[in-house]
């Protein structure tokens, strides 16, 4: 069976205040990037999933992981890509 790698992006939901994003926005503007209008800061995870019977199985396992632990559905959205190999 092939092994899979999940690249997972966890981001603040629209409408949830993101103090870190606002602070980074301020930092970019103070460096002179005045055209920058917004920054949202999230989290990037690479998860070695190990073996799975198919791409679909690996993706559904990743979805479970995101729901159970990796993202808090109250404040965060997630998306991911699953690729074969490590």
């Amino acid at each position, binding site marked *: 069976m092939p092994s899979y790698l999940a690249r997972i992006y966890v981001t603040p939901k629209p*409408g*949830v*205040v993101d*103090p*870190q994003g606002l*602070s980074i926005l301020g930092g970019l503007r103070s460096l002179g990037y005045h055209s920058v209008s917004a920054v949202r800061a999230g989290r990037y995870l690479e998860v070695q999933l190990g073996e799975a019977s198919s791409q679909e199985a690996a993706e559904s396992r990743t979805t479970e992981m995101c729901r159970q*632990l*990796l993202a*808090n559905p*109250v404040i965060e959205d997630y998306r991911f890509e699953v690729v074969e190999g490590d």
Partner: protein
Amino acid sequence: MTTTTQSPRVAVVVFPGTWSDADCHHVITNVFNAHADYVWHTESNLSDYDLAILPGGFAHGDHLRPGAIARFSPVMDGIRRMAEEGKTVIGICNGFQVLCEAQLLPGALLRNAHLQYRCQWTNLRVETTDSRFTSLSQQGDVLRVPISHGDGNYFADPDTVAQLERENRIIFRYSTPEGEITPEANPNGALANIAGIVNKNRNVLGMMPHPERCCEPELGGVDGRPIFASMLQHAGVAVPAHTS
């Protein structure tokens, strides 16, 4: 363990990284002369206990999100059962974050709006006495209680906040010493100045400020006492008059 005493028992839950456990234990045992045990997070059976405290700290290092890992500790099965049975559960600071992650309370605690860790005194207006945590207070009382956190910025979607308001489940709000709810009195950006909420059954409270740090004059204030006195009295402890 065989329990022959009828005295209510308090569980002080300890996760790796909890830091306010000794303060909570001290208040229960030395200020209120009640029985408290430290309970390590691997224990899932809390049936001996009438009241559980999830103290402040950084359970499991707060990695990923505060409370995200702690939520899966075996002790949370026991906490969930106590909550279902109508027993008293209070989460203080990190304990509040754990209760939200465990979905025993709605919402989440975001990074403080100003991104700073704040360790300071705050004023809490008692919004309702219709709870076992505030039954010995008067509505509108202002309690001076310290905070110590970096992620205390309460957030929930507008429907949830409206429901909390409608069901009178906001127990404490950050206020001025005079009891006015102002943006300046809000130390972390929490929605609607929310400092503490209860669940639907009103037996589970989460609050960011630390009442266990202000139960003796030597520590600069005693306004944490009515909170402990209320819930201990509800659990059947004869609360000494001077402590409430």
